[in-house]
């Protein structure tokens, strides 16, 4: 504070008047886009590979590691209910086309999958119907499924996940947690030949067998074949 009363006020007013004529600092936002540094953490993005397919494998690890649960994987269950776990699905709505379901870690209603499924799933459907597709009775459903098949086939787990709206990870996790539930048929574990589960020989498997036979004929049996499924 100066000796002359009012001098500080006059100085301040001179300062504001100087600022009145100085160049302004305002960033003209909508016309001039904001300068965002390359490291800025903005919106989460899913990455695609060069063929245009998603690189995400829906392993749920990011969703589980994220402390603030901003990564969401959700979907719509068979009864048309919104299976809301957490995240933004409430605010953004959910899509249920094939790619979205796959991204959400849900089983995809795929016709081709039916041919590959060697298991008759009507027993699972009946169990689900009895349990009212209720995910809270998951343990009961899994127990009944094991009782029906002798073990828990992966296809049945996927059907349970789809039917109840619970995550496949949750179903799988529950099944691995309890010791009385198993994924391998007990007969196979014991070294028996016959699989217990009833199988249906699908058309596609037959085609594949034919193809393999033709391949054997052409290049000789026992030769090196690429591992994995033949397309």
């Amino acid at each position, binding site marked *: 504070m100066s000796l002359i009363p009012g001098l500080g006020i006059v100085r*301040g*007013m001179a300062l*504001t*008047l100087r*600022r*009145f004529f100085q160049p*302004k600092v*305002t960033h003209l936002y909508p016309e001039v886009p904001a300068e965002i540094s390359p490291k800025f953490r903005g919106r989460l993005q899913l990455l695609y590979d060069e063929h245009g397919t998603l690189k995400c494998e829906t392993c749920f690890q990011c969703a589980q590691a994220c402390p603030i649960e901003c990564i969401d994987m959700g979907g719509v269950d068979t009864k048309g209910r919104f299976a809301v776990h957490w995240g933004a699905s409430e605010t953004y709505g959910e899509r249920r086309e094939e790619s979205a379901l796959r991204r959400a870690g849900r089983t995809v209603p795929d016709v081709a999958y039916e041919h590959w499924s060697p298991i008759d799933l009507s027993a699972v459907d009946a169990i689900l119907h009895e349990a009212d597709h209720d995910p809270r009775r998951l343990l009961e459903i899994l127990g009944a499924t094991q009782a029906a098949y002798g073990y828990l086939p992966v296809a049945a787990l996927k059907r349970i996940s789809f039917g109840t709206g619970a995550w496949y990870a949750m179903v799988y996790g529950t099944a691995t947690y309890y010791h009385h539930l198993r994924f391998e048929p007990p007969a196979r574990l014991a070294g028996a030949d016959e699989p217990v589960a009833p199988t249906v020989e699908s058309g596609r498997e037959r085609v594949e067998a034919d193809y393999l036979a033709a391949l054997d004929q052409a290049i000789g049996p026992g030769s090196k074949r690429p591992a994995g499924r033949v397309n």
Partner: protein
Amino acid sequence: MTVVGRTWERLTIPGKILAVVIPLGAVLTAGLAILIAVIGGAVVQFLVDNLPLVRFVVAATIVLLMTVPSAFLIIYMEMKVIALMNLRYGPDRVGPFGSALSVVHGLKVLMKEDFTPTGADVPVFTLAPVVVYMSSVMSLLVLPFAPGLFGQDFNIGLLYFFAMGGLTVVGLLMAGWSSFNKYSLLGGLRSAAQVISYEIPLTLSVVGVILLAGTMSLNQIVLGQAGNLFDWYIWRQPLAFVVFFIAVTAEANRTPFDLTEADSEIVAGFATEYSGMRFGFFFFAEYVNVFIASGLTVAVFLGGWNAPFNWPWPVAVGLDPGSLGIGLLLLLTLGPPLAIVVLGLPFYLLNSRIRFWQALIIGFGLFNVIAVAAVLGLAFLSFDWVVGLLWFMGKTYVFVFTFVWMRGTLPRVRIDQLMGFAWKWLLPAALLNLFVTAFAILVLNR
């Protein structure tokens, strides 16, 4: 069905409208003519006899209408000036340079829901903004804008002014009391304390001027300052000017004395519970008060409408349009088209991308600008009230800018500092000024 009914049925909708409107109009016109013939003379005679009354009604209407655009202008000015002092651009979207934004704010406030709280004292709550606004408008009535351009020339003009200014506090107190809100109550009481304290130095500070001028009529005070820059009362009453300016800032509830609506202390002061247009009245009244405070400072201390120097080259326009005779008619009919073509031709010739009709439009615009400028220039030279109004408005808006500038710079004082300043500093200073002035007059006039 009668003949009239059948004819009516056949008429189209415009026909029906015409069939109603034309006879109705005829009857009304005839009635009006008869009315004017019978009592028109008496009415005109009455108006002629009571010319001051007519003048008062007209002046009051004009002043009331004038407050709205001037408030809009000051609001825009405040937004823009403070923004520029804050190193930002301020409004720039609505209208050119955002100039329509204050109008948009005002219209929006008009359309908001008008809300009365459940516990409020409804009549008082409703009347408070009206009282505040009307007191501002009524004090504007005696402000001399230019020679011959004022609402009323009271011989107690200044006294009337301060009385009306004191009425504002009644409105604010009404608003504060009736809102049923403690913040409003605090704001209302603060404004009562503040305005009443500052009335005294405000009134005392102009007593010196009254002594010098020998009158309380604002018009006469301004006339007494005629001449050049050094005839203004600010040179003879510098201390009074300082006291007056500070007190008038407090009277208008402006920063640094805006305690009544201190955002950071009592939410919005007396206006906390007001919404919609009732709040708009308070909002407008504040800016009308800024205009009034500036105008009064200019009128009392800065010479009012008087120019700061005499124009050294007096220009006399001896143009008498009547002397042209038939030539005037020719000038009025042929002049504008010719001027439009002449003004538009250069654009047509010099730029090949401009079509002829576009050039004509440009010429028309230019002609209008030139014609308006010519008329205004003629008025400027011919009538001294135009000059006076320009000087008055120029000086007033310099003070409005100062108020806004202070708002952009200064923090708020505390209520005890505010009162202490009024009673310990301003009042003795005003009294000192009064005694010195009286003594000087006594000595010099002897």
